[in-house]
Structure formats: C-alpha cells, structure tokens
C-alpha cells in the first residue's frame, strides 16, 4: 500500500499543489487536508505547505495555528507523527510552538524569491536520510519573514541537541560568512531548518517541492521529500523513525 501523506490546505496556501506533486514524485499518495477538518484521514505524515495562510494577518502563521486541523496536527506530532512545515508551514509550526524559535521580517525588509544553497547538518533524521551524502542543496526561497530567531541559550541548546537541521551555505558548501548572498534573510547562525526536541517535526524555509524534478531547474529537494515518504512508510510498519535529541 502506498504511503499517504497529508498536505494541509489553508485559505491562502499557494504551494499545496506543488507539494502534492512533489510528494507524488517522491512515491507517496498525497491527500489534501482542508483547514476546517479535524480529522487527518489516517495519513502517515503531514506537510504544511507554503503560502500566506489566512493572509498572514497579524503575524505570519499565527491565525492558522488556531484552525481545527492544527489541533489534530499538534496531537499527531505529540504522538510521534512526522510533520514537515515548508516556508509558511514553518512559520505556522513556530507560532504553534511545535518547533522552537520564531521567523522575523527579513533583515533587508524585502520579500526574497530566488535560489539559495543549504546543507543538512545531519543525515540520520527522518527528513534527511535519503539525501545520500552531505552536499550543498540548491532550491528556492520565497518569503518576507524568514529570519530565524531564538535567544542565545536556545540556539546553544539547539546546536548541542542536533536540532539545527539545515543551514544556509555558500554555493560551494562553505559556511555562510553572514553576507546577504549566502544568508539571504539574516537568520541567526544561518539556520534554514530546525527539528523539534523529539526529532519528528521539522520546519524548513526553502522549498524542496520547487526543486523536486530536473525540469524545475534543480532536483536537489527531492531527497528531503523522499526521506519523509520513506520514513512515513517505516513508521507505518511500526519502526521508530524519529531520532530525538542527541
């Protein structure tokens, strides 16, 4: 049986179709989950896609947090279910407290839509194991509020626990030196994606689904979606897939 991955559709989501397609490419049967439904239809994993949920009014992601579907996603995550939030989905997860930190306005104040390179810090997680080897991954960003923020004590703890999953890097894979080319939004410690403490929820600003086939200009993102789909299949078979804090 094919792995079923739910893609939540909020009013204002605009990457849901791309995400449904990317998940199909990655071998899953994607299922749309409307924001007003409380049931997750028995899916094996959940993706919160990019967009502007509820218009991003007040703060990006905050109003979506209180939708019926998000109560179920929070319960699913608390039960060990795999959840990936991409871009606006990351903002929703952060506002819901399902991943640490907050996403602030880009330092430049500009909305940024362009390719970036990121690197996975760990290849042993449900979101990265199928990437293969550690190498820079090229995929687009498209956001106005992507500047990752947490206080220093939290950042130190995240690093210690292996919860910093992706960082913006230079195209050759070298660490960002803080310039706007390599760390476009000014994220603290060049953080592009984080894990929750249990290792089953991931928030990521760049868009792997927009880089899931060569015809899109890059297929560097497909490894992330494949990791999720593969992990969801193993989770359904009863395997322990989340790695937890180090």
């Amino acid at each position, binding site marked *: 049986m094919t792995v079923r991955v739910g893609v939540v559709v909020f009013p204002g989501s605009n990457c849901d179709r791309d995400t449904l397609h990317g998940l199909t490419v990655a071998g899953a049967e994607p299922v749309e989950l409307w924001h007003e439904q409380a049931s997750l239809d028995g899916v094996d994993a959940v993706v919160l896609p990019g967009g502007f949920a509820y218009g991003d009014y007040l703060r990006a992601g*905050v109003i979506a947090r209180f939708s019926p579907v998000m109560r179920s996603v929070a319960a699913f995550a608390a039960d060990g279910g795999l959840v990936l939030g991409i871009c606006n989905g990351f903002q929703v997860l952060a506002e819901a407290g399902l991943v640490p930190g907050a996403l*602030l306005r*880009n*330092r430049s*104040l500009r909305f940024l839509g362009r390719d970036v390179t990121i690197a996975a810090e760990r290849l042993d997680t449900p979101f990265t194991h199928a990437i293969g080897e550690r190498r820079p991954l090229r995929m687009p960003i498209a956001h106005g509020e992507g*500047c990752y*923020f947490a206080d220093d004590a939290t950042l130190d703890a995240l690093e210690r626990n292996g919860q910093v999953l992706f960082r913006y890097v230079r195209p050759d894979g070298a660490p960002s030196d803080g310039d706007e080319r390599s760390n476009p939004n000014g994220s603290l410690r060049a953080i592009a994606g984080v894990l929750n403490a249990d290792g089953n929820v991931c928030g990521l600003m760049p868009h792997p689904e927009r880089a899931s086939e060569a015809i899109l200009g890059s297929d560097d993102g497909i490894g992330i979606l494949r990791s999720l789909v593969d992990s969801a299949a193993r989770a359904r078979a009863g395997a322990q897939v989340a790695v937890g804090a180090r």
Partner: protein
Amino acid sequence: MSSHRFAVNVTPKPGILDPQGRAVEGSLGHLGIEGVSAVRVGRRVELTVDAPDAAAARDVVERLASELLSNPLIEAYAVEELEGVPA
C-alpha cells in the same frame, strides 16, 4: 454586563532586531531631522469586550494579548483600558 474598550500595544522586545524601525530611522535624514534614535515599530490593537465588570474584561484581553496578539518569544505587550471612550 458592560462594555469596555481596550488598546493592546505590541512592541518588539529589547534586543530583537527591528528592521522596520531601522528603515524608519534611515529615512529621517531625508526629512532633515536629527537627534532621533532607537526607533522601534510595533502594533496597536483596539478592541471592545463585553464582560460582567472591568476586571473580567481585562482578563479576556490579557489572554488574547498573550496567546494571539503577541508572540512572547519576540514581542512584549501592554494592555491599556481606554476610559471614557465609547465602546
């Protein structure tokens, strides 16, 4: 029941980078204004609450302010009752 009018002022916490504030500050030179610094841009939300008394109304606003109107990681808020303002 009575109606009470409140304002909730939400501001970036000290130390949080506020690029909007910086942009405002950067524009002051164009106005020929000097001596203005530490500009911080926040948000003000005004609302009316129907409750048995002012204290109960304020409790509702406090909850709203901490759970929805502000993100405690990055923002502080202050609740102000608007006396004499028609609700």
